[in-house]
């Protein structure tokens, strides 16, 4: 397998390192959030959650799905960013 730019010190293609990192973090967390949303909302009805948390607020299912999806995206992006930060090597 290709050792990747971190190990070889070279860039993949013409994208800057910074741009690659941002794209990789956003994209991998997006995919994780998609899978997570399917699992989460397969098991959980947002209306049930609202019924026990904020029963006074008139919130729709679609709002619940959207909140859940973007929340998962955010959390996954944080994890990806953290992993990337921990793996970064100090410059010589």
């Amino acid at each position: 397998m290709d050792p990747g730019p971190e190990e070889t010190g070279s860039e993949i293609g013409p994208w800057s390192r910074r741009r690659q990192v941002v794209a990789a973090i956003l994209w991998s967390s997006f995919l994780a959030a998609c899978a997570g949303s399917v699992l989460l909302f397969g098991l959980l009805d947002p209306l049930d959650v609202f019924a026990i948390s904020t029963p006074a607020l008139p919130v729709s299912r679609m709002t619940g799905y959207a909140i859940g999806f973007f929340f998962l995206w955010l959390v996954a992006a944080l994890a990806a960013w953290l992993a990337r930060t921990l793996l970064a090597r100090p410059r010589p």
Partner: protein
Amino acid sequence: MTSPTTIEPMYASAPKIYPREVSGRFARLRVAAVWLLLGLFYAVPWLRWEGRQAVLFDLPARQFHIFGLTFWPQEFLFMAWLLVLAALALFFVTAVAGRLWCGYACPQTVWTEAFIWMERLAEGPRQRRIKLDRAPWNAEKVLRKSAKHLMWVLFALFTGYTFVGYFTPVDVLAGRLLTFGAGPWETFWVGFYAFATWGNAGFLREQVCLYMCPYARFQSAMFDRDTLIISYDLERGEPRGKRARAASRTGLGDCVDCTLCVQACPTGIDIREGLQYECIACAACIDACDSVMDRMGYDRGLIRYATQRSMDGGESRVLRPRTVIYGVLLLLLAAAFVAAIALRSPLELEVLRDRNMLYQEIAGGRIENSYTVRLVNKRQQPVEIELRATGLPGIELSGAGPVIELGPGELRALGVRISAPAGAAPGGGHEVTVEAAVPGESQVILGRRTRFFLPAN
């Protein structure tokens, strides 16, 4: 990330690739795939089945309709199963035939192809596009560029609308969007998907494959020496070199070094340097090279679909442990999936708490909660059932009538009330079960749990 002294630019680097248009067997195959797959994508939401949209992932109602089948959230295992099947099928195809998915079926390829077609319509073929981009801004450039972007934006918006049409009835959505009466989330997701299509197919294109596609990085795990890849016949082609006529080569191989294969490549690589992870196996270089070979009077196939083993002079095998294991797993899981669908529960029962009111006190010191019960008879015969509630002492279900008759395939939503004595349990939410049973008998067909609220005493 970056050293303190240098700040790397975010959007400065990638040189634009202008893939040369090619014609040939594989280009025709890809155009056919584009028509078929995009055609399916845009047409499927408009199919009807028994008076409703045939394929509708109705998220607001939490039901997935796929022709005659209806899936409820509690059956989402089927969906996960289907995804596993799709992944296995991808592994299997990859092991046998390489990145066929990338070249012909990936949404990224298919939409990029459509966007490039619009680009050519507005800006002309490759040389004209390069010239246009270098030219100063004049009336023609403004006109051609705006025409392209107008087509792109309209097509992307229609794509976003169609995408949302899989989740909310597509005809109703059309009316609502045209009168600006769509819900905020519908509007948002149409825009979101349109933006993603426009960005990915119009601008990012091959960069999605290079930087963002996980499959491209996993593929080496699925490849072996018997996998079909796009290969340049080194033996036959080298030493490459230009020549005046086909006959006038002196010690040169078949490669005339015309670089058409490089110009045709959507990811901008030179296939003659061997297999690279950037190669999406679109076979544009094969078509380009074949056309040159034809003109020169040489045999086709200097660049061709071949396995590493056959290139090395060996005999390729389709049947090998890897393909057999993927194939057998695929067959087993597919058979089990079909069987599981066929053996699903004959009845569907869903209980939704009414959210308007937590509870209500009624006569006799009882507390009442309201629910909507959705019943579906999935069989082709009528069925009679009785609804009961269990889970608390003295609990009763009313409002559904003694016996409910459901016709073949009938879906019925019923408003029911469940009541229990105020002191039956401490205040708060309690789990109760609504059961669909055979009338007058103890046999329970199906039970669904729901919550029942009592006031604090």
